[in-house]
């Protein structure tokens, strides 16, 4: 039983916090947002220089052999600084598929580019009617000799605009909501038949809706079993949920800190509004919510390595529920305690609120995961 970071992990935390303090103040973020695809190539290069983009990959594959705790540290820091760069899409999700299912050739083709920052990835999974069910896949991948032909539409693909490679879920067999017959494919973003419609998202990131029309890929594009990869998808998305939990903890920490600072300085009736008990109690409840979230983020980080997939999923679902409840409370009350200024685009607190809110609606919301836990027999 040990909740402390190792010496190396503390150094990692210090180095990423230091990097982001130097290059990621709120004003700089606004300029990064205006670059193509909505994030800064220069910052991405700095993350690569510090080895952060290769963190979770095995040393044999050119990475640094980091585990879940290392990713948690990075995601918390990225959340705290409200970072736009596609770490989740590229390193956590894209990297996750390559780590868990990539052949040596696939890793050799993709990992070095991720690690050195020259290539980014995106996960094309969401469909018009799939909502949060990962097995609900209408996009098809039909076998044609050794090759596959992909047809379908994917939505809200984060980093879809800039990604060099798309990781696409598509059905090789069966009907839309069957749990078998789902494959995962590495598709070059510039492949013939790929069309993209890009747009900014509510939280300042960029995403794309992507249509696949007769997109042909070779056998070397298949990640894992083309006919039965739901377990793989669930595993990687579980890791993405864990990463989102950590990001949310960082966002909540900074939201609470910013809000407490604000009510200490904002004066009304001749005194700091933080001297009013109603506001003190609200801030205390925000603290409680944030601490409960932190506990579950740690729990989820550990659970990602559970051998039993059902227990892993159940624990991570539980964490996403707690994070969802906490982030809604902390986010909303941060705005409330800021008053009018919290409503403006000019103040940074609203941008934290918006990112938190989008996390709630990514890879399953509170209700969705609460139902999963309930249907799995609870969490005893």
């Amino acid at each position, binding site marked *: *039983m*040990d*909740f*402390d*970071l*190792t010496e190396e*992990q503390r150094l990692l935390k210090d180095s990423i916090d230091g990097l982001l303090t130097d290059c990621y103040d709120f004003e700089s973020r606004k300029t990064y947002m205006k670059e193509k695809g909505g994030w800064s190539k220069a910052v991405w290069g700095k993350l690569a220089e510090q080895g952060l983009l290769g963190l979770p990959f095995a040393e044999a594959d050119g990475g640094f052999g980091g585990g879940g*705790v290392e990713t948690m540290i990075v995601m918390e820091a990225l959340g705290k600084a409200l970072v736009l760069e596609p770490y989740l899409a590229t390193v956590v999700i894209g990297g996750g598929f390559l780590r868990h299912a990539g052949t040596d050739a696939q890793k050799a083709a993709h990992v070095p580019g991720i690690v050195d920052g020259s290539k980014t990835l995106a996960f094309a999974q969401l469909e018009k009617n799939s909502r949060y069910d990962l097995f609900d896949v209408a996009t098809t991948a039909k076998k044609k000799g050794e090759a596959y032909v992909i047809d379908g539409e994917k939505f809200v693909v984060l980093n879809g605009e800039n990604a060099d490679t798309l990781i696409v879920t598509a059905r090789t067999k069966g009907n839309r909501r069957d749990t078998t017959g789902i494959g995962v494919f590495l598709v070059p973003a510039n492949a013939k038949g790929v069309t993209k419609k890009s747009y900014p998202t509510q939280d300042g990131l960029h995403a794309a809706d992507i249509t696949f029309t007769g997109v042909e890929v070779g056998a070397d594009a298949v990640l894992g079993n083309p006919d039965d990869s739901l377990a793989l998808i669930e595993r990687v998305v579980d890791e993405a949920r864990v990463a989102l939990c950590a990001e949310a903890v960082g966002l909540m920490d900074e939201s609470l800190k910013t809000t*407490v600072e604000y*009510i*200490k300085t904002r004066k009304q009736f001749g005194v700091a509004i*933080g*001297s009013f*008990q109603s*506001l*003190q*109690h609200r*801030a*205390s*409840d925000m*603290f*409680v919510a944030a*601490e*409960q*979230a932190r*506990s*579950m983020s*740690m*729990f989820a*980080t*550990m659970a990602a390595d559970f051998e039993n997939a059902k227990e892993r999923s159940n624990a991570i679902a*539980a964490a996403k*529920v*707690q994070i969802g409840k906490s982030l809604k409370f902390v986010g909303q009350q941060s705005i409330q305690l800021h008053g009018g200024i919290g409503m403006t685009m000019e103040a940074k607190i609203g941008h934290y609120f918006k990112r938190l809110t989008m996390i709630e609606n990514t890879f399953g919301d509170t209700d969705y995961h*609460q*139902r999963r*836990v*309930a*249907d799995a027999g*609870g*969490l*005893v």
Partner: protein
Amino acid sequence: MDLAFTKEEQAFREEVRSFFRDNVPPDTRRKLVEGRHLSKDEMVTWWRILNKKGWGTSHWPTQYGGTGWTSVQHYIFNEELQSYPAPQPLAFGVSMVGPVIYTFGNEEQKKKYLPRIANVDDWWCQGFSEPGSGSDLASLKTKAERKGDKWIINGQKTWTTLAQHADMIFCLCRTDNNAKKQMGISFIVFPMKSKGVTVRPIQTIDGGVEVNEVFFDDVEVPYENLIGEENKGWDYAKFLLGNERTGIARVGVSKERLRRIRDLAGKVESGGKPIIQDAAFREKLAACEIELKALELTQLRVVADEGKHGKGKPNPASSVLKIKGSEIQQTTTELLMEVIGPFAAPYDVHGDDGSNEAMDWTAQIAPSYFNNRKVSIYGGSNEIQRNIIAKAVLGL
């Protein structure tokens, strides 16, 4: 970071669990599961079993009969005790006055009181709250005047838990009226059968009598019954209240209750099928289980921190334990009410000794719900806890 228990810790859990299995009287366990009150005999019998095993005062320093366990072992012991369930050691003796005596008392006091506390030869009660001093405890008025080698004590205490069983009371008394209110308080102990002590029961909304008013009318107490220094009582009280930071979450109690809810919800029908099959109920239950898991982890963070850095530096997360722990305890009693539905209503006029078998599983559910409203009030109300977080953690 590694949240798994070590092999040794797991073996310890097994040892504790099997001791409870073999030694907790079955009737005592059943009464606790059903939310009944235990008789004085039942409690004392169990505590003496625990003391004989050497676990009655587990967290005391070893020279006074403690076990020398790590903070994780204490955590495991408490969790197993609460979730078996078995009665917890009498907090007023073992967790409150005991540590004050071995920390601030003189040798004679240690020799006189500690073994009797450990074996519950004396049942202790706590004389802190007064009618006019609840959350503002330091405003207390009960007066101890020194006359020669005696104290003369006058005043009134209230919410004195199980004073009807008590042999001894530890009492905060005002000994200096001119000092700042926190500075003029002393910590004095005396027998409940002293002349001039009157106990009047207070019936609470659950119908039970757990708490009392205690009146002092010219009670004569030997001067040497003062613990520590005169007018330093407030420091000792703060020490005493800060001692049991992690136990207050009562995670094991809530775990046990959630198991009972699952069990009952599989039996009680709603709409022609067990209520556990009702999606809305099931999700509410899951929501509570998730909150409890988060609290358990928060508690473990505090425990691990204490193990590493000692008890001196409170972890900010510890402030969360009282608020969340009490809210979850209350939610579990609400869920039990929901499970039994209309059968919450009948009131067992025979009391809660278990003699009325027709009502053996329903009778205590509503009273337990009513009774558990107290948990967000006692031990520093949840509003006081929020004040503490605002001030000590957030710097507001």
